[in-house]
């Protein structure tokens, strides 16, 4: 192995998805000159500490290092999990999906408000317990109210950092002292400070596939409510592919928003590919997720894709996000158990697993949104 191989190894790692920067390659080459180049272990350990920056990258490094140490760089190493899998669509009755609902949303409540047999439907009569699947149009206002309340709470949540204010309960000594110099050290005018509000961001990823038909109406209203009272909400919907709808829901009346959305989603199929959709989300949006972000996934977990892909995408998301909440409308039913392959794969990688089938369950969400 020589210095050139070090550079090539760096490049090979980059090709395999390990983010090795040019400056790290330079560091690697520099390090190479100060270590025992004949000692395989020492070269291995040194370059590993420079080129990798997380333990998950160790296996791929080990494989590639072996090739360059023996001077036999060759074909692409299969990085675990990067292989594409073909997707199968779940057989069964064709579902209508969001597009259908959006086209008929005005007429829908009357027709749909008949109690339909769904898991999660409750027998109670009060609005809070009424299952969303039997919601009328006017009930949607309640949903919007809950959304606004949640958002208000989020905005008020104090962080541990301070900011100066005109009037407050805590004295800002640094500023006060500075000002007191004008009056010969007499503290006449005091400056104050207060806790900076925590800027929690919210990302909502909503399943609008056929199996979610009964809940789409409510969940969209909920997202719409969130979107319009809180600046830092990003919303996405998915069925077989992912679509960002933040702009479509913003600053419009609900009717108007739905019209615009209908135009966008027309022609969607009713199948679900949660794993693939989340992976698509990660590819583009993961960088913007940080510890101040709460990610809410709204889905019943009926996935036609590979559960491994779902698990991988979710664990990536969980590592970056402050909290990952999975809301499953079916969870409202006592008989429901999250046994689907998708849900099973997802469970280890979510922080909060909660129902979302009635108003009470949405209200119960509030404490989970506070980081």
């Amino acid at each position, binding site marked *: 192995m020589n210095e050139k191989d070090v550079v090539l190894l760096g490049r090979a790692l980059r090709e395999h998805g390990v*983010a090795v*920067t040019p*400056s*790290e390659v330079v*560091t690697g080459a*520099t*390090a190479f000159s*100060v*270590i*025992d180049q004949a*000692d395989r*272990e*020492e070269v291995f*350990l*040194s370059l*590993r*500490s*420079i080129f*990798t*920056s*997380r*333990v998950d990258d*160790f296996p791929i490094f080990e494989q590639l290092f072996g090739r360059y140490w023996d001077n036999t760089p060759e074909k692409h190493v299969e990085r675990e999990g990067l292989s594409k899998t073909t997707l199968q669509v779940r057989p069964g009755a064709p579902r209508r999906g969001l597009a259908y609902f959006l086209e008929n949303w005005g007429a829908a409540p009357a027709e749909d408000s008949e109690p339909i047999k769904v898991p999660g439907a409750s027998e109670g009569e009060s609005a809070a317990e009424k299952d969303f699947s039997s919601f009328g149009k006017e009930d949607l206002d309640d949903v919007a109210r809950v959304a606004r309340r949640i958002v208000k709470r989020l905005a008020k949540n104090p*962080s*541990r*950092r301070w900011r100066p204010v005109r009037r407050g309960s805590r004295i800002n*000594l*640094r500023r006060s*002292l500075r000002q*007191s*110099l004008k009056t*010969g*050290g007499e*503290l006449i005018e005091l400056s104050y400070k207060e806790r900076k509000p925590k800027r929690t961001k919210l990302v909502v990823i909503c399943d609008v596939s056929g199996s979610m038909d009964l809940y789409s109406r409510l969940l969209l209203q909920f997202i719409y409510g969130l979107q319009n009272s809180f600046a830092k909400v990003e919303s996405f919907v998915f069925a077989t592919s992912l679509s960002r709808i933040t702009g479509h829901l913003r600053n419009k009346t609900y009717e108007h928003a739905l019209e615009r959305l209908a135009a966008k989603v027309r022609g969607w199929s009713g199948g679900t590919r949660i794993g693939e959709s989340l992976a698509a989300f990660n590819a583009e949006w993961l960088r913007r997720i*940080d*510890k*101040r972000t709460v990610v809410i996934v709204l889905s019943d977990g009926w996935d036609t894709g590979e559960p491994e892909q779902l698990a991988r995408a979710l664990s990536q998301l969980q*590592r*970056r996000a402050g909290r990952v909440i999975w809301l499953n409308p079916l969870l409202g039913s006592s008989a429901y158990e999250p046994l689907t392959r998708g849900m099973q794969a997802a469970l280890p990688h979510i922080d909060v697993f909660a129902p979302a089938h009635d108003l009470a369950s949405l209200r119960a969400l509030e404490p989970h949104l506070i980081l």
Partner: protein
Amino acid sequence: MRAEVQQIKRLLEEQVYVTDAAVATALYLSMTLGKPLLVEGPAGVGKTEIAKVLAQALNTKLIRLQCYEGLDATTSLYEWNYPRQLLHIKLEESSPIPEAEKEATIFSEAFLLKRPLLQAITEQERAPVLLIDEIDRSDEEFEAFLLEVLSDFQVTIPEIGTITATHRPHVILTSNRSRDLSDALRRRCLYHWIDYPSLEKELAIVHARVPAISEILSRDVTKIIQRTRTMSLSKVPGVAETLDWATALVALNATQVDREVLDETIGCFLKDDADIAAFKAQFDSNHG
């Protein structure tokens, strides 16, 4: 193996720290290339210990910055000594010194409270070891601020000017991976991962740190701990717990681990009620 790496290994071992080539190489590179070393691993495997032992081995000062959410420049870098400033202003109240000069006086180094980062930069004698502990517990804002300090080891205080490090500190950062650190910070650092030790290594650690322990007892202890780590517990015991337990057993004059001794000392390595119940159930099924 390079002589310097061997020397570091020997120095660490003199401080009763059982080490391996990986740690020694990482430390050697970190010191030679002047790059911070990021140490990751589960809780209780001796990440912090590396910094402590390094400071002892180099016979230099250990400066520790414990991170937490909301940690900012005033608690990590510097703060003005307000009470002293106030007193000084009062004393000088009637003196004819012009205001500008008064201001310059109270914002001079004598009125500066040096927090860990500034201490590390201004250390005069020799390069100290700067331990930034549990960086994953601080927030992104602090991480960004830290990047700035670590990139050129200089700090600008508006009232005083720019202070540049006299000796570049040896920086060690630890993380429990409770959150993902930014790529920028990771790239700036060398990376070292410490996992739970193997049976042999843990045995060696026990003998090194609890010399009074008998061969039988130390085998019992490490075997049980190693097996405990394979169970699904809410709090997995680290090496620190192993040592606590071994020390306790020696103090109790135990010759081997039986049910009675276990009942008395289980709190040394399991800290959760449900974990203790699960462990005891398994212990009983294994030992008749």
